[in-house]
């Protein structure tokens, strides 16, 4: 019951991890089914229609329901601790963000059971996704499920921006923030400015499908390229939203396990901001073959290649951080170090794709599929694994088993390269993407088989990770405040798991890598910035759950044209908003006497 009403960022982080992890398994299952279908030519494991649903849901689930929530898990678990705060700026909204994401995800997946999941690709291009060519409910689930989940993401973005701007501990200027915090700061800004564009696109598509509007209906003057523009204006920043937090994790992990200060902090900050900004200027590189013309293609081509520069700065800084450092290859560090060459591989194929004329050959082939899996899986997922192994003790109070962690890493890593390296060549040989089968005798057979085997290895690696979680929960080693013994940042100054109130006394920050600075000066702990006193905490609330349920119900109502139900669902949501506004939440206090005992029970 506590978990349904919590507004505690630490618990919400765990909820995000559980839900995101669950959807990761769902998306992974969809991937395995895809690969089984493709292991041999003219396979009939699934029908073409089902295949389209699988590939759509795989992409949509992995990006929106697995990757982003797991990033939100790390954000929630770590950011307030890294800046010396006791919670995020808007704890109630934090909970609301989780529940809307959750119900959006549930809505999307209910479609499997009600006659058809979305099947127009995760990019849902029109006219395929328009009522003329997708008359069943699949795309409606996509449009409405993502709008609901998107609200949650937007709320989370604003929450972390305000938290980082307003709630840093005394002495923590912007240029003393940990790199992960900087990464989340820029990511949150990207979320704030990218998601409204997606919302408008989804609303327009929804109006076309449900109310016969004409945004994308060419007969009545609509424009199908408009959808592509709107979608990718969101879609490109979205992939930077996915990768920047991973960059943040890598900075923390490499620096900690090299026992060395991050090389080139200022340039890292600059590079992160530049990547974020440029991310909004390159969207049409997804549309090189859409007919925008040579001028547009040239501009976007150059802008895209430019992004490689700040990214390269980051790569070199990580390498220089490791150079001369005293490196410890824990599982977390294995994932981080594995990330570097893998992401570079994905990045360079990205530069290849950025050359517009060449892209006319690569577009819609497996070369593109290989590229984005290298950067998303080889980048983001390795980063998430790294972050999870690194911060697990702080979140749950126990160390993940190192042997199982290494097993996870090697199985997943080898499986990953096996699956996707070969797909570059499939693409170059001409295999198009999103096809449910291929003919015999074209030369695709062996490579697809290898790719499928690799996918199973990745699945095995994931299973090892789950085993690790279970083994740790049952008999894991308890963690101290600073279990890696080389912690540099504030989260390692407090017990593991973090107590309910985070910091008994808000710390005084005297430099970058605040904790390391104190250690180098011979101190065991941080200097407090305030006396011990009663700590004010926000009260839990059931309203976010009900608001999300209201939206969920409304979604169904609109989709099936039962407007009474739609109105009722919205009514529930608005009623909860009203209650929230009218009832003052004064929170509660934790008295100094209780401060020794309270801890988060995960």
């Amino acid at each position, binding site marked *: 019951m506590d978990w349904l009403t919590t507004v505690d960022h630490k618990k919400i982080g765990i909820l995000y991890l559980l839900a995101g992890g669950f959807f990761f398994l769902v998306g992974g299952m969809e991937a395995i089914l895809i690969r089984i279908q493709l292991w041999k030519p003219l396979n009939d494991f699934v029908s073409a229609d089902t295949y389209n649903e699988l590939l759509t849901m795989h992409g949509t689930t992995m990006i929106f329901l697995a990757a982003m929530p797991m990033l939100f898990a790390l954000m929630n678990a770590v950011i307030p601790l890294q800046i010396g705060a006791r919670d995020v700026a808007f704890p109630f909204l934090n909970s609301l963000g989780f529940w809307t994401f959750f119900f959006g995800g549930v809505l999307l997946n209910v479609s499997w059971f009600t006659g058809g999941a979305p099947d127009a690709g995760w990019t849902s291009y029109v006219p395929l996704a328009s009522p003329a060519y997708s008359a069943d409910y699949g795309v409606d689930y996509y449009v409405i499920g993502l709008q609901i989940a998107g609200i949650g993401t937007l709320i989370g973005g604003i929450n972390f921006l305000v938290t980082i701007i307003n709630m840093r501990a005394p002495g923590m200027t912007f240029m003393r923030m940990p790199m992960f915090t900087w990464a989340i700061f820029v990511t949150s800004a990207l979320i704030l*400015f990218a998601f409204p564009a997606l919302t408008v696109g989804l609303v327009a598509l929804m109006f076309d499908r449900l109310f016969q509007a004409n945004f994308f209906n060419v007969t009545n003057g609509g*424009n*199908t*390229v*408009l959808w592509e*523009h709107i979608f990718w*204006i969101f879609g490109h920043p979205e992939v930077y939203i996915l990768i920047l937090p991973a960059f943040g994790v890598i900075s923390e992990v490499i620096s900690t396990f090299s026992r060395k200060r991050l090389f080139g902090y200022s340039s890292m900050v600059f590079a992160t901001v530049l990547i974020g900004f440029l991310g909004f*200027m390159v969207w049409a590189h997804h549309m090189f073959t859409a007919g925008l013309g040579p001028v547009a293609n040239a501009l976007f081509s150059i802008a895209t290649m430019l992004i490689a520069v700040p990214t390269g700065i980051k790569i070199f800084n990580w390498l220089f951080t490791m150079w001369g450092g005293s490196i410890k290859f824990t599982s977390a560090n294995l994932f981080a170090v594995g990330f570097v060459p893998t992401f570079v591989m994905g990045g360079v194929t990205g530069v290849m794709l950025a050359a517009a004329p060449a892209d006319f050959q690569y577009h819609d082939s497996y070369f593109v599929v290989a590229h984005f899996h290298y950067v998303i899986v080889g980048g983001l997922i390795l980063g998430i694994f790294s972050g999870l192994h690194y911060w697990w003790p702080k979140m749950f109070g126990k160390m993940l088993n190192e042997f199982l962690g290494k097993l996870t890493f090697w199985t997943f890593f080898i499986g990953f390269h096996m699956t996707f390296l070969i797909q570059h060549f499939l693409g170059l040989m001409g295999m198009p993407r999103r096809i449910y089968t291929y003919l015999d005798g074209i030369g695709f057979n062996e490579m697809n088989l290898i790719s499928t085997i690799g996918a199973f290895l990745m699945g095995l690696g994931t299973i090892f990770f789950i085993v690790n979680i279970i083994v740790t929960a049952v008999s894991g080693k308890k963690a101290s405040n600073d279990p890696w013994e080389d912690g540099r940042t504030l989260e390692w100054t407090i017990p593991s798991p973090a107590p309910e109130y985070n910091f008994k006394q808000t710390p005084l920050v005297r430099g970058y890598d605040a904790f390391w600075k104190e250690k180098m000066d011979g101190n065991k702990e941080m200097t407090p910035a305030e006396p011990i006193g009663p700590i004010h905490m926000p009260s839990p609330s059931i309203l976010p759950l009900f608001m999300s349920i209201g939206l969920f119900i409304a979604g169904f109502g609109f989709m099936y044209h039962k407007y009474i139900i739609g109105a009722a669902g919205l009514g529930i949501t608005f009623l909860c908003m009203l209650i929230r506004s009218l009832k003052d939440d004064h929170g509660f206090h934790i008295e100094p006497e209780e401060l020794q005992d309270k801890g988060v029970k995960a």
Partner: protein
Amino acid sequence: MTANHSTTEETKKRHKHEGPRKHIVAYILSMFLTLIAFASVIGGEINVSFIIFILLMMAGIQVFVQMGFWMHMKDRGHTFPIIGILTGAVVVFTMVIMAEFWAWW
């Protein structure tokens, strides 16, 4: 109390309450700009591109007036709001260029 807000000092220093005068001036200015915009469309044989130019100028100035005075963006302590709105505006500007020049089949 975080080290990052300065309202305590602000509260002590500026105790005079701003009168309504500045805001009424902003209001009259906005009306005036609106009037020019409408007039340029209704009256006279002006070149279409020039009208559009006037309209955009009037809108732009009015936005500055309204956001500067009524939303206090010209006052101190509004760094992040300014960054926030400006970034949004840059994104929008890029999109509008796209829509005007490139969104066709």
